[in-house]
């Protein structure tokens, strides 16, 4: 298989959302064939640069997935599986990209706030951000502001994403922002919030930089916040 063909196969498998050979794609013909992980390994072995795999297969594949979503051909599960496939590829490529000086789009810290165990929304946002080329640090669910502050102190980050499903826990977001302010850290980080009971208005009230209605919006907001910094 030539290099161009290999990159094309990676791209197809991103579009089909196949992390590896065990995954089903939408296209039955791909069953049992190598998925993104195996193909990326093969590409590296054949001397294709990590940057070229990222830009020439993963990004182009995700762009096509985005177009299909916009046109109504693809649904959110398709976006997520494609993002998962890109995420799997990024884990393999990361050390190669670092050593060649290629940086991710930004570092994002995600957390579902204290008192709230609902993390599916946050996980979906994480998958989508990872697929979009962000370095994602997921602190999990029921995370108190101390843990968030500790993480932000430890590692330089571009974005903080906070999630809550309950009206009783969304107020915790305001507390996190207040604590960051008291620590003198608020100006150094852009903050986006999301979750079923939230609204644009609530985000404004607590002083967040943005409210994301869903995972698709979250990626767009992340792109916009990162480009502003």
């Amino acid at each position, binding site marked *: 298989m030539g290099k161009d063909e290999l990159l094309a196969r990676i791209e197809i498998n991103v579009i089909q959302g196949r992390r590896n050979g065990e995954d089903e794609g*939408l296209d039955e013909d791909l069953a049992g064939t190598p998925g993104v992980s195996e193909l990326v390994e093969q590409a590296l072995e054949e001397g294709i640069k990590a940057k070229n795999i990222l830009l020439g297969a993963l990004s182009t594949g995700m762009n096509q997935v985005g177009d299909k979503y916009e046109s109504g051909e693809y*649904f959110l599960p398709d976006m997520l*599986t494609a993002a998962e496939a890109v995420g799997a590829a990024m884990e393999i490529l990361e050390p190669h990209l670092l050593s060649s000086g290629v940086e991710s789009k930004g570092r994002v810290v995600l957390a579902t706030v204290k008192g709230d165990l609902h993390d599916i929304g946050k996980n*979906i946002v994480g998958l989508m951000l990872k697929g979009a080329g962000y370095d994602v640090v997921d602190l999990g669910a029921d995370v108190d502001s101390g843990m968030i502050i500790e993480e932000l102190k430890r590692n330089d980050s571009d974005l903080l994403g906070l999630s809550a499903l309950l009206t009783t826990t969304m107020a915790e977001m305001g507390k996190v922002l207040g604590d960051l302010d008291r620590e003198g850290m608020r100006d150094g980080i852009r903050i986006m919030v999301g979750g079923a009971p939230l609204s644009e208005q609530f985000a404004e009230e607590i002083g967040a930089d943005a409210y994301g209605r869903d995972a698709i919006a979250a990626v767009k907001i992340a792109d916009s916040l990162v480009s502003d910094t």
Partner: protein
Amino acid sequence: MIDTTVGRQGVLVDPVRRLDEGQVQAVHEASLRILGDIGILCYNREASALYGGAGCLLSEEPDGSSRVKFPPDLVEDCLANAPSRVVLGAREPDNMLVLEAEEPRVRFGSGSEANIYLDMHMEEFRRVGGEEAIRHPVYERRRGSVELLCQAARLCQQLENLDFFIRTVNIQDTDIAEEDKDANKFFASLNNIDKHVMAGLTALESLDKVIRMGEIIAGGEEELRSNPVLSFITCVAKSPLQFVDDTAQKMMEIVKRGLPVVVSSSPQGGSTAPITEAGMVSQINAEIIAGITLSQLVRAGAPVLYGSVPVRARMDDLNDLYGAPEFCQYNMDCVQMARFYHLPCYSTAGVGDAVVPGVQATVEKLLSHVSIPMSGAQYVHYAFGLLEKTNVFSPDQAVLDDALIGAVKHMLVKSQIDRRTLDEAYSQIERVMDTPHKLYARYARKGIRSGEIFPPYFFETREDVDIAVLNAHERRLELLEREPHYLGEDVVNTIYDEVPGLVGRINPYS
């Protein structure tokens, strides 16, 4: 041998049984008792003679009718003669319906002969002194006409979940004589939709003209019998328990000509039938099986549908009340009675008492759209666009109903739980539990494409104003822009040559 896998498949349900076996048997016996002891009043001489010749007891009534009392064996023998499978053909073979009494496969269709065609357009309204406009539907009640019937049939052709067509509006054109109504209404229907077409007959004299039209479309006499692109509805009983001269004659003549016919009754609980479930069901069942008995005396083995249209009366004005729980109960029971007799059931669901589309119409329709098909009726009429107790056909409501019926059909699909699907699910759960994000979304993708996963409500609105009706209206206009499914020009020309009385304005080639 007819292949039951051809044509529109509808949805095969695991039927809900409102009555247990003992109750079904008891209703049957109660109906036989009504027919044996009280009898019916028959105003048709030929029918009375047939009944008398077959062993019924006849006695003269003061008004000239015959009181007919039925021996139970005769009714049971005749019911056993009626076929359990009835084929309703269609211009498009993929749209034919094979109704099998033993198979609770549900199909939905339109009906029936509303006087008003409710047109609608959108207007913009502004608050006095305000800038922002809101769109709101404005309705126009139009008298039913042959052109509106053509338009309704053209729309129904495009409604994915409409399995058969019963004329939606009563044509009231002043230039169409009574004796020409049937030819015009059947042509308006058959020329604009290639699904099965069924209607009542306005004038008996028109029957042979309509049949000739069917033969031209199907390709000949034999072809029409094997692919009956049209069929008839006859409401033989005027409740309570009276067989009118005119309709009984129509039913007998249709049977003699070998075409499928619905033998129906539509009593109103509280006025023309008892309001209790027991009273309504035992009476309507008696009326229908007495009618089917007549059909089989005319011609043993004649294809008939058990036609049940029981409604309930409102208590304020004794008008029909369709959005009532009792309406659903009556109809569900009748579906079971039809199955007990091994007959396909022409049933009823989805009428709104509301005057215009909206919340009230949706609530009323949903109640019967869901419950009655759950009982496994093979042929559910009245399901599209009917409002104001069947007095109004709203094409926009028909579009809304199509979306609702799509969801109902999906909901009715039999459960797929078995060892294989449970094993697949186990393996999926096992795999997802090994991932950090615990998300099943990837496994939903194929189901979205195959139709296994139902999409959100087609007319959903995400704003703070519910504009589902407006969305449906736009959809209606879009559907009417699509290519019509007219009959071929040669066929239309032959029909115009051989069937007198057709108006020129509904000929697409003139």
